């Protein structure tokens, strides 16, 4: 990484000399990206497969709580830091919009206490509402920007967990699917794997607890077959966390080798870190290549004019023609912009339709469920179900939108008739806080009626009966309260009570439906707004990105023309000097160009 930064800095120096602010901005952003490299590897799997223990064994420290019962309830991030420390990320209590700051707050805690915050025991069902915990450790494994994310297990009773994990996936660069050696993959695991592959293609599988199961080799073979059926080439690494921890305690290298961890570490290094680095390398190389091309163009044209003053007008004419062409291309920008604008408005319409369609299906299901029974007593479960379904629908829409927008960027890039146009970096699929402005589903009257109320309802009904029949029988000389009037009162009271019960059920069902409708409306409103905002951001980012490319091209040509014209008017003495200067500069540019080319061409050889 360091050498990449050095290269970019050399590029910046060169650009500075040439005084091209636009190119410099680009290189500076590249440098920023390089310096802030973090590669998130999320560790997922069903519960009780040894995810937390795997991370503990990797960093050789008990940072993630391990228990015989379900342990992890909050995602924990383990990353490199000079000093061991821990931080909790909690949502800010105050209104996040009020001060415009981030809605999350970071609270430092003692590293030893971290288990009590993130475990199911200390924090059942995440009642402290933690968003995440972050642990920093000075470990060699983590150097290079690797951060490991321990996630709560999926497939449990609480499908909300698996949803959290799925929504966290798009932010991760790679994923480790953990399954223990007691048995081959089950259907839910493979289903999760397929789902995850759509979101994050960089997936490795880990087979844990090989110390406990003598037949782990058989299981590994069986798993291999299942994996190949999903997609060939997914690596499967058998490990034993317990052996690794033992090995660390006893300082036993042989045991460490037996634990299988060296292979896992090598995989993390070469494949995950390596592929992230290769991506970085490619983009840096491309940036440097295009920038050196730009610089060289103006330098060579100036040099040409200086060396051969007679042909200057011809060269200028050639350059003017090129500039004309570039202008043409800029004008053609109209065409790519039309593609972009049309694409975005199509995308907004499609996505709104998609979101509404998904939510309407949920609404229909919900209303059917409400009609089938009394929603009062089961409202809590119902509201939970509704929230989960909505969250998963929204996350689906976001993933879909992200796929579509990447496709759109490619469409736009096709308008540029260059060999390779950089594509903008887009990210919309992160659904972290999308649903937070939506209020929780409000509570519904559970429909329980106290005994006193029951009596009152009955009395209210019977009152008329007693009075009516009492008066009627009064004609024949009976008192107001007599067996007939009381009997009539009882009958009418019962009828009134039953009717009242029915009416209350109807009312509750109506109320519940209204609540569902309002909730869905709210979601459509908030999420629609958020999606539209993001798509607009994408549109803007894409537009800026491509117009910048066009602009750079135009400016380079313009600069060359000016330089050539200036050269024609230069005195002979100065000419010699200037030629030397340019030659020296060209040499440096060429050197950088060659290095960038090497970087791109053969990443393996250039690895530190």
């Amino acid at each position: 990484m360091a050498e990449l930064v050095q290269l970019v800095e050399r590029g910046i120096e060169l650009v500075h000399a040439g005084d091209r602010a636009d190119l410099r901005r680009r290189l500076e952003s590249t440098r920023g990206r390089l310096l802030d490299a973090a590669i998130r590897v999320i560790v997922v799997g069903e519960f009780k497969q040894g995810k937390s223990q795997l991370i503990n064994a990797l960093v050789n420290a008990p940072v993630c709580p391990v228990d015989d019962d379900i342990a992890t309830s909050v995602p924990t991030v383990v990353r490199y830091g000079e000093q061991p420390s821990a931080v909790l990320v909690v949502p800010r209590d105050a209104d996040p919009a009020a001060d415009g700051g981030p809605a999350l707050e970071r609270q430092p805690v003692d590293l030893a206490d971290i288990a009590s915050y993130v475990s199911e025991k200390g924090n059942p069902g995440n009642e402290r509402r933690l968003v995440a915990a972050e642990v920093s450790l000075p470990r060699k494994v983590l150097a290079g920007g690797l951060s490991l994310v321990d996630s709560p297990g999926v497939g449990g009773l609480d499908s909300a967990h698996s949803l959290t994990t799925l929504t966290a996936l798009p932010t991760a660069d790679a994923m480790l699917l953990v399954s223990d050696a007691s048995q081959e993959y089950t259907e839910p695991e493979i289903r999760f794997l397929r789902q995850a592959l759509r979101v994050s293609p960089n997936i490795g599988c880990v087979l844990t607890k090989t110390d406990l199961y003598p037949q782990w080799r058989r299981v590994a073979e069986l798993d291999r077959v299942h994996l190949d059926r999903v997609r060939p080439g997914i690596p499967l690494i058998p490990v034993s966390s317990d052996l690794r921890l033992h090995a660390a305690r006893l300082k036993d290298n042989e045991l460490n080798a037996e634990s299988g961890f060296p292979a896992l570490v090598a995989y993390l290094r070469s494949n995950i870190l390596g592929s992230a680095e290769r991506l970085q390398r490619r983009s840096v190389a491309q940036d440097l290549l295009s920038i050196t091309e730009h610089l060289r163009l103006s330098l060579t044209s100036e040099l040409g004019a200086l060396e051969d003053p007679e042909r200057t007008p011809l060269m200028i004419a050639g350059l003017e023609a090129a500039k004309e062409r570039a202008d043409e291309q800029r004008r053609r920008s109209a065409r790519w912009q039309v593609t972009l604008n049309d694409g975005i408005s199509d995308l907004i319409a499609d996505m709104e339709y998609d979101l509404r369609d998904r939510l309407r299906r949920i609404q229909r299901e919900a209303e059917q469920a409400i009609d089938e029974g009394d929603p009062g007593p089961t409202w809590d479960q119902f509201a939970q179900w509704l929230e989960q379904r909505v969250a998963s629908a929204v996350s689906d829409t976001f993933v879909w939108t992200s796929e579509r927008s990447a496709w759109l960027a490619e469409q736009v890039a096709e308008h540029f008739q260059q060999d390779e146009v950089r594509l903008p970096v887009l990210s919309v699929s992160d659904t972290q806080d999308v649903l937070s402005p939506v209020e929780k589903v409000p509570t519904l009257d559970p429909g329980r009626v106290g005994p006193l109320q029951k009596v009152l309802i009955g009395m209210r009904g019977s009152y008329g009966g007693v009075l009516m029949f009492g008066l009627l029988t009064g004609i024949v000389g009976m008192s107001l309260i007599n067996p007939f009037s009381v009997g009539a009162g009882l009958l009418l009271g019962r009828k009134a009570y039953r009717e009242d019960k029915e009416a209350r059920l109807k009312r509750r069902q109506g109320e519940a439906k209204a609540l569902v409708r309002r909730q869905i409306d709210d979601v459509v409103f908030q999420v629609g707004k958020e999606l539209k905002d993001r798509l607009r951001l994408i549109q803007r980012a894409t537009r800026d990105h491509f117009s910048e490319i066009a602009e750079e091209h135009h400016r380079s040509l313009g600069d060359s023309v000016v330089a050539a014209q200036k050269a024609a008017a230069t005195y002979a003495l100065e000419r010699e000097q200037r030629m030397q200067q340019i030659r020296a500069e060209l040499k440096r540019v060429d050197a950088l160009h060659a290095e960038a080319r090497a970087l791109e061409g053969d990443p393996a050889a250039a690895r530190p």
Partner: protein
Amino acid sequence: MTDGVGAAVAALVRDAQEVYGADPAALAVLSGYDRRLREPLRVAVAGMVKAGKSTLLNAVIGEEIAPTDTGECTRVITWYRHGDTPRVTLHPLDGAPRALPVRRVEGRLQLDLGGTPAEEVDRLVVEWPARALRDLTLIDTPGIASLSREVSARSLGFLTPGDAPSEADALIYLMRHLHASDLGFLESFQDTAAGQSGTVNALAVLSRADEVGAGRIDALLAAREVAARYRNDAGLRRLALGVVPVAGLLAQSARTLRQSEFAALAALARLERGDRERLLLSADRFVREDAPGGVPAGERAVLLERFGLFGVRLACVLLGGGIGEPTALARELARRSGLDDILRALSGQFQARAAQLKARNVLIGVDALVRARPRPGTAALAASIERILAGAHEYRELRLLGVLHTGGVALTPDLAADAERLIGGSGVAPARRLGLRRDAPADQVRTEAVLQLRRWRAVAENPLTDRSALELCQTVIRSCEALLADTAQEPAAPL
């Protein structure tokens, strides 16, 4: 009091046979029910793939007959019933049943379908001269949530048929940890088999309990805690009579411990502590060629396969702790594996209620038949079905057990727990109902029953008792009265 329902249902089936005298299809179904009433109770063993169903089945039978494997193994529904000579019969979906050769390799049965694809097999029936099968027919089913969907579908179709009563009278459900798909399955089993009468007839088993704590020596204690949590889980409580942790592999092997294995285990236990711990660090180390201890690597591999790492660790500790002979070791291993608990639950919850459980499924079946094929005389049948369902105290007990498990009764927790025990929540033997020791003398049982009867009468008469709890109180009173009646009839009977 157990004969009542059984006899009534048997009479009902006979009546139905007369009514449907001219309908051979219905007659065939009815004679099937008649047979079913006379056969032992059918208990299905179900669960997710690799939950250890076949292993547990072997442990219950006490012999290693059901084949087990690391990969998914059971692909066909297999019935294990009692027979004087070993015999395996294959029942294809269509065609006549045919006998398969009985072949055993190292004690285990080799179930070779003889070229018939698994999809075309309705079931395999294994008849085996095992004592445990005398009053229990066990049904091994392929795992649910399997990657081969049609295998799972076969299990689901068998256990939860849409239109007929389930072939199984009761269910042992194995799970390793409570998954959402476990609950879904239990719900649908309850829906079909018992939905109409609203009772609970499944026992949940936390299987492979030795793996809960990653093979530590106290793993089973940890498993007990986990099981206790599941027992109180609202979702599971209303579906299962209880949750029992079992280390299936250990239970199976403990029941079939061989002398050579005992000798090998004893040799391992005699090793230096440090050496032994290093040896038992991982499965791979345990079967290494150059390990100390004087036990050949091949023998160690067999030990590992039969007992698991946890089993070997536990056996070494037990042997070191003073147990010196094979029978005692086997008994202790079986006790620790949780096998006794599950056998007790089987006999207390299922076998003691066998007549009712069988009768209920038959009732549902006859009811469906009567509804589907009405003819003169069926009205009377329907009436007697309703009479049996409404009148049988046993069903009321079972139904109330379901209600109690859902927590839908307005009683204090103490009272609710007592009520659950009295109506047979932890077993139907009088002493168990009253919470006495198993060998409590008859007059103690009687005094306690009288005490409980008085107490519950008081609760029932208390005006502050919620109306919804009254039905329960009356059922409990009726159960107490039945207890008294039973003890009065046979005062000398050992309880």
